[in-house]
């Protein structure tokens, strides 16, 4: 039943670009891409319950690395893994500092935000990486440089990322690692008493999450052809990632995907709508209202609610 539904959905998503307009393809690229980032965050933020609001830093490190490596002749297909590895190292540093000293809740939020901000300020002030202007990637349309003439290539790439992220989370969920994370989220001291090395597993969750997010950074850079420190390391990007997971259902396999399917079109359409009428940024109000509604009425997110609604 679940498999049939999943395969049917996949078939639809694979066939969809044939009938979609260019604008609709763009929206889907963003849906898949944000679903992937939210899924990556879900590992440490959802399953392990460790609230990171600095995930933009991993996007930035991944994107900058791949873009800078391309200048030195390294293909982004390789550069994306170097970037992801560096993001994972940064995740390890942040995770160690945060978890070693038992930071939780607001304090972990502050630490992760602080790291992302440090990255932003460093990138803005180092001319070798473009300074405040950032990096621009010259469009060549060469697939070896992670660039494509056809928008649909990005569609399938983003879809592949979303499936990759979801596959990784599905694997984690069934293994000891994932089961430990759900318990760490509930009570760390009880975990320790039962022999769970909580520091190790929280670190692992952060590193895997950062690695995947770093992969996403390369896609971000080569889809938009530019990297600005204020956008790519900024708090708003982190928030965009997190609210998709939270609204869809943090700590569930399909929550981040559902969250992105709800929020990304809403964000894009309302952004376009309000910009036309000169109300720039008003779409954030729509986000805010939605977030408050979900937190009040569906505190576990939309996905667990839908599951209950359909009785399974």
């Amino acid at each position, binding site marked *: 039943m679940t498999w049939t539904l999943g395969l049917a959905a996949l078939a639809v998503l694979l066939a969809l670009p044939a009938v979609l307009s260019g604008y609709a393809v763009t929206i889907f690229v963003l849906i898949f891409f944000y679903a992937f980032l939210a899924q990556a965050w879900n590992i440490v933020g959802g399953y392990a319950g460790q609230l990171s609001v600095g995930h933009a830093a991993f996007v930035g490190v991944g994107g900058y690395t791949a873009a800078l490596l391309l200048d030195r002749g390294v293909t982004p297909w390789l550069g994306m893994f170097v970037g992801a590895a560096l993001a994972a190292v940064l995740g390890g540093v942040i995770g160690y500092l945060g978890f070693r000293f038992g930071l939780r809740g607001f304090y972990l939020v502050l630490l992760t935000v602080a790291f992302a901000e440090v990255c932003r300020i460093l990138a803005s002030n180092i001319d070798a990486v473009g300074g405040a202007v950032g990096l621009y990637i010259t469009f060549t349309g060469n697939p070896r440089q992670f660039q494509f003439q056809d928008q649909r290539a990005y569609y399938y790439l983003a879809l592949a990322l979303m499936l990759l992220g979801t596959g990784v989370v599905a694997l984690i969920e069934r293994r000891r690692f994932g*089961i430990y994370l759900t318990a760490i989220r*509930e009570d760390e001291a*009880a975990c*320790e*008493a039962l022999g*769970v*090395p909580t520091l190790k597993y929280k670190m692992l969750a952060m590193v895997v999450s950062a690695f995947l997010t770093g992969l996403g950074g390369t896609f971000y850079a080569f889809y938009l052809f530019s990297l600005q420190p204020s956008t790519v390391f900024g708090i708003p990007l982190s928030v965009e990632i997190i609210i998709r997971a939270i609204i869809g259902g943090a700590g569930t396999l399909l929550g981040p995907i559902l969250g992105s399917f709800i929020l990304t079109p809403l964000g894009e359409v309302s952004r376009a709508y309000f910009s036309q009428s000169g109300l720039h940024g008003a779409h954030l109000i729509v986000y805010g209202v939605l977030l408050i509604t979900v937190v009040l009425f569906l505190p576990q997110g939309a996905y667990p609610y839908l599951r209950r609604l359909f009785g399974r």
Partner: protein
Amino acid sequence: MTVLLQVAGLSKRFGGVQAVKDLDFTVAEGEIVALIGPNGAGKTTAFALISGFLSSDAGRVTFAGRDLRGLAPHQVNALGLARTFQIMRPFPRLTVVRNVMIATLGRHADVAEAERRARAVLDELGLGAKADRPAGGLTLAERKRLELARALGTEPRLLLLDEVMSGLTDAETERIVELVWAINRRGIAILLIEHVMRAVMSLAQRIVVLNHGERIAEGRPESVANDPRVIEAYLGDEAVTRAPA
């Protein structure tokens, strides 16, 4: 009998309060020892020191010949020393069987095997029928048994039980006493903190009495029960708090 747990000169101070002072005692392989004393005597602090949740100011704890100094709680557990909490800490949103799997996964990385063992422990403790319910919905007595099931799931050599009978009815207490006997018969040594004296008297082979963080008596249940220092520590307290003005 060979010594399994040795506590020597253990001390811990919180600000102006000497919670545990120069505490010595041992638990032998397969033995049942009770740690008793009035409220605030330092029993739970002693447990936290032994299990690695607190670090001591002085003294040492040796388990199966290994010095536990500097070990994290999960490392102490991995050596075969499991504890329960006085205030039970189930993972409320996880199912009962998942709760126990957190324990069994430590020795059995294979999830299916860990689940099989968790269900076996639950059956043994009479919680098999509740295995797939969320732990948050259990009654107090069931939670106490879940706490026991989880500790047991880590396959310990020594089990530290912190008031697993408090707040239970006589019948439920009886049930736990039988379970503790059954666990002990499998060769697992037990150190228990308990206020239910009837249970302590029937279970413990040896009793260590604490008052104000210090050991004031130690011995067989009948001799400890008649020790004037113990009577004074208990009755003195009770007499002060219960005497009508």
